[in-house]
């Protein structure tokens, strides 16, 4: 379990050329740009498939400029994508309408297939867009962008602490699991899951008391409810150009499609 977590955590860093034009953009520009790609794609029905194509093209161009290798993106995307796609797989058999295709035990419907394709396209664009943000922007920078974009401070703070202590907690879970395994714990069916539950309880209590200690340490250094910021973010011309370019492109295709 800890092996899997560590593997996933390795995927949180930057990838590609850290000095590329995309990496250097203000994190707010990237958050706005890539989020709007996702939103526009999600808002487009299947008939407006050119919107998907344009959104995908924007992502491909960004990835190319940032020199993110397809492999790096794929390794991140494959962690999330299966969960998202599995939702769409059943739709063709449930949603009725249009022509039907007999597949032995199951019957697929044309309307359902269309929904499935649309859901898949949206899921793929959204996931790649998030992964691209992750490869070109460090998590602390994303958090700062969110804070600057007026996401409630409490939520940003919770995300920041989650990120900081994820690694500590993963190590702790790994140690507890080693301790269980080295005393012969080898669960083979659900009835033996008890110790895991108790481990989760212990984990909760530990993180709770750690939270208290961290808060003390913050108070000891003069924390008064506001997280101070060291370097201000700078939204320059390149950032404005990036946001304007992306928005103009995808919105014009989206609106033109809707009007036609």
């Amino acid at each position, binding site marked *: 379990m800890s092996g899997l977590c560590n593997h996933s955590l390795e995927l949180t860093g930057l990838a590609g050329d850290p000095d590329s034009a995309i990496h250097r953009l203000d994190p707010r520009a990237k958050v706005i740009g890539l989020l709007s790609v996702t939103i526009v794609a999600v808002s487009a029905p299947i008939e407006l498939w050119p919107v998907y194509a344009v959104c995908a093209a924007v992502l491909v161009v960004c990835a190319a400029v940032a020199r993110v290798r397809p492999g790096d993106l794929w390794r991140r995307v494959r962690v999330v994508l299966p969960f998202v796609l599995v939702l769409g797989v059943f739709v063709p058999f449930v949603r009725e309408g249009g022509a039907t295709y007999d597949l032995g035990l199951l019957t697929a419907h044309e309307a359902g297939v269309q929904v499935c394709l649309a859901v898949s396209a949206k899921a793929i664009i959204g996931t790649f867009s998030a992964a691209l943000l992750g490869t070109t922007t*460090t*998590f*602390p920078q994303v*958090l700062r962008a969110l804070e600057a974009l007026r996401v409630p401070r409490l939520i940003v703070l919770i995300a*920041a*602490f989650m*990120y*900081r*202590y994820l*690694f*500590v907690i993963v190590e702790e879970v790994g140690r507890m699991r080693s301790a269980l395994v080295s005393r012969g714990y080898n669960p083979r069916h659900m009835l033996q899951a008890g110790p895991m539950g108790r481990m989760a309880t212990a984990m909760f209590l530990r993180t709770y008391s*750690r939270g208290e*200690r*961290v808060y*003390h*340490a*913050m*108070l*000891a*250094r*003069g*924390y*008064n409810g506001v997280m*101070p*910021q*060291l*370097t201000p973010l700078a939204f320059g011309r390149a950032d404005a150009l990036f946001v304007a370019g992306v928005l103009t492109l995808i919105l014009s295709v989206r609106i033109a499609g809707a009007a036609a």
Partner: protein
Amino acid sequence: MTCVVHARGLRYRYPGHHEALRGIDLRITHGERVALLGPNGAGKTTFMMHLNGLMMGEGSLEVAGLQVAKNTLQRLRARVGIVFQDPDDQLFMPTVREDVAFGPLNMGLDTEAVHARVAEALGKVRMAHVVDRAPYQLSMGERRRVAIATVLAMEPSLLVLDEPSANLDPRARRELLEVLESIDRTMLVTTHDLPLAAELCERAVILAAGQIVGDGPCHEILADAELLAAHDLELPAGFDLGAIERRSRPLAVPLFPR
């Protein structure tokens, strides 16, 4: 000599629990390095938490020229730097730079001054090269030194360290000791590591069951085997106190940082 810590009849009772501090009288003068020794549960950490008002008990406590009270907390916390036992509790920002900057920013310093403080504090603990790393990427010894930098950056009058050598391998412990010896601050070090106390501090105070039961020059306290044994403290077998003293005494209270 001005007093950095002056406690008179300090008492504290945990809600619904036993009395953790039972009348502490202690004076620490400017420039002293004091080891606070005692078994687990003696009240060392509780006392430490009083020094910057994280806990407030009965009696009188003056620290760094301020009476510990609600209205002095913000100023007090700028003057008292506490380094907690687990560096993971202390280092909560995404990068070392932001973490070291946290205290000075809370003190209301401008960005330029904060950057200067960050560089200086990390330089003092010889950790300037990790400024852009994340805390989880550092070893335990490195984290502990960065944790010290986070409070040094606030330029406190009093530096309080809770078990600074816990969980360190011998080399990391040696490096930490060298760093601590080079810092010219009034220091209060709570520890079970008696050799560390002997090398670093010229005075030792033994706390047991919430009371001070021994106070004197470190080498005398540590040479008193009966006193140590009575309070569950002991030097490592075969440890030669004399050898330590001769080596460290000239460094014990440096007037100027190296």
